């Protein structure tokens, strides 16, 4: 078999081509307030595999919806057999990126499990599944709970902070292990930056923000416990930007900073100011 992601001791729907031709499509919507987070499905919970859906109807299997928040160390699971699911989470328990993992699991031991459509490599094999065994893997989704995020601010201000570093000279340093992306300029550069940042912001965006954002985009998943990660992800999603080309995405996020830098520079040269 080709393309299996995880090696399970039994066939799992949507794990590689254990059972070819299936794709589980789920969707969730959420309403966030300080007190509570309401989550509900926007597409019915179904594997589209008749045998597994029947196991859920019969009570031998259930959907497992796991909510994880790395920042607050919260992890809750919900077992359900309904097709339209809704749950209310406690607001003070969650902040930052919430991951939703979906699976179908056996809720009791299932002997001689042999789902229809098995990959031919399995032949006539059947399997004894223990309670808790995974039968199907649904999509993993994520969304951001950010109670301090100000959507009226320019995205860059909610994501990056430029500060004076402790090094005297040399290249700037980028720290991603905080709620903001921290850019530390050398003392020498900071003095220059402080003098001209309000006069030629676009030129500075091109020189500093573009490479920093490109780096951050490539590391967004590694830092999902930091608030900047969720904010950046949301800003990218709102513009339909892909993470596959971080440098292009960074330029899109900053509204084509190079063009604007040229315009800024030309205006200053035309005016004869420096």
């Amino acid at each position, binding site marked *: 078999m080709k393309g299996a992601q995880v090696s399970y001791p039994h066939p799992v729907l949507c794990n590689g081509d254990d059972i070819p031709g299936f794709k589980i499509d789920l969707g969730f919507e959420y309403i966030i307030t300080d007190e509570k987070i309401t989550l509900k499905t926007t597409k019915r919970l179904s594997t589209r595999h008749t045998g597994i859906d029947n196991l859920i109807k019969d009570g031998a299997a259930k959907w497992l919806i*796991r909510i994880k928040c790395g920042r*607050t*160390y919260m992890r809750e699971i919900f077992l359900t057999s309904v097709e339209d699911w809704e749950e209310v989470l406690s607001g*003070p328990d969650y902040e930052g990126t919430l991951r939703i993992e979906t699976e179908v699991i056996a809720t009791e031991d299932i002997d001689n499990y042999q789902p229809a459509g098995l990959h031919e490599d399995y032949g006539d094999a059947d399997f004894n599944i223990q309670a808790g065994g995974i039968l199907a893997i649904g999509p993993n989704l994520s969304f951001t709970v950010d109670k301090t995020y100000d959507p009226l601010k320019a995205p860059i201000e909610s994501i990056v902070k430029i500060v004076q570093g402790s090094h005297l000279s040399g290249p700037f340093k980028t720290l991603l292990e905080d709620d903001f992306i921290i850019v530390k300029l050398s003392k020498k550069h900071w003095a220059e930056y402080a003098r001209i940042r309000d006069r030629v912001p676009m030129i500075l965006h091109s020189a500093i923000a573009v490479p920093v954002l490109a780096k951050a985009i490539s590391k967004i998943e590694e830092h999902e416990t930091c608030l900047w990660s969720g904010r950046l992800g949301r800003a990218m999603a709102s513009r339909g930007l892909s993470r596959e080309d971080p440098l292009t995405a960074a330029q899109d996020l900053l509204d084509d900073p190079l063009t604007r830098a040229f315009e800024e520079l030309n205006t200053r040269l035309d005016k004869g100011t420096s």
Partner: protein
Amino acid sequence: MQIQKIINQRTYQNISDALDDEERLNVYLSEEKFTESLEYGLLNTTINLSDKVPDLVVSREREKVSANDAENAILIYEYLIGLSRVQAADSRLWTTLTHTTFWSYCQGRWPSANTKNYVLDHWFELKGKGLGALRRNAISRLWWAAHLTVAPWEKNTNLEVFKSSDRYKYTKIMLSQQQTFQDILEREYGSNLNMRICILDSLDRFHKKVSNKDELTKSVAVKLTLLLKSRKLDALSIDELLQVIDQLVEKLAKKLNLITAPTA
């Protein structure tokens, strides 16, 4: 009641940046108080504090510095009673407390403060370090240890089988051994309440019967992580979950020849 104030982000940056300077780093090792004033730019919070600041205890003998962790965790948890998880995820709070109220305790509990990384680990809280950062800051580790284990039967009625007159029974179990604390806090399964309490309960019973607690705890963490890849134990009932974990722990204790007392 008093209100806890916290340092702002700029102060946080300034004092962490200052660790590049050896003289400033030495403050953590030798000064009775943090030498830089943190008054400027302090932010108000909605965090209420008990009137009495707890007197955290730490042994002067290096090999016993962790002996009072559970006792101190309970004191910190009750001092910051009502703190939410979101508030507890704010590194500025813990950095303020390590540099002010609990400065002396931090120096006693973490006495090797002569490198920048050591101070960053225990006096600050680095977000991107994942779950591990929670157990490193000298004060946040105590709060989280208590928060994750206090009276679990009050959070989930299915856990009433574990009910005890001691609301901090599982805090004491978790902090009785640093290896257990590390594995529970840093492994993903430890963030699930049912899993956490069943593992602690099982380890507590078996630790009384084995010759090397650390070795058993480490092996259980590795095997459990593997098992969870194909079997979602957190979906089992408490009875089933405890049975699976007990079997795993007993099997490993026998395999490693660690058992010194009868197991049944």
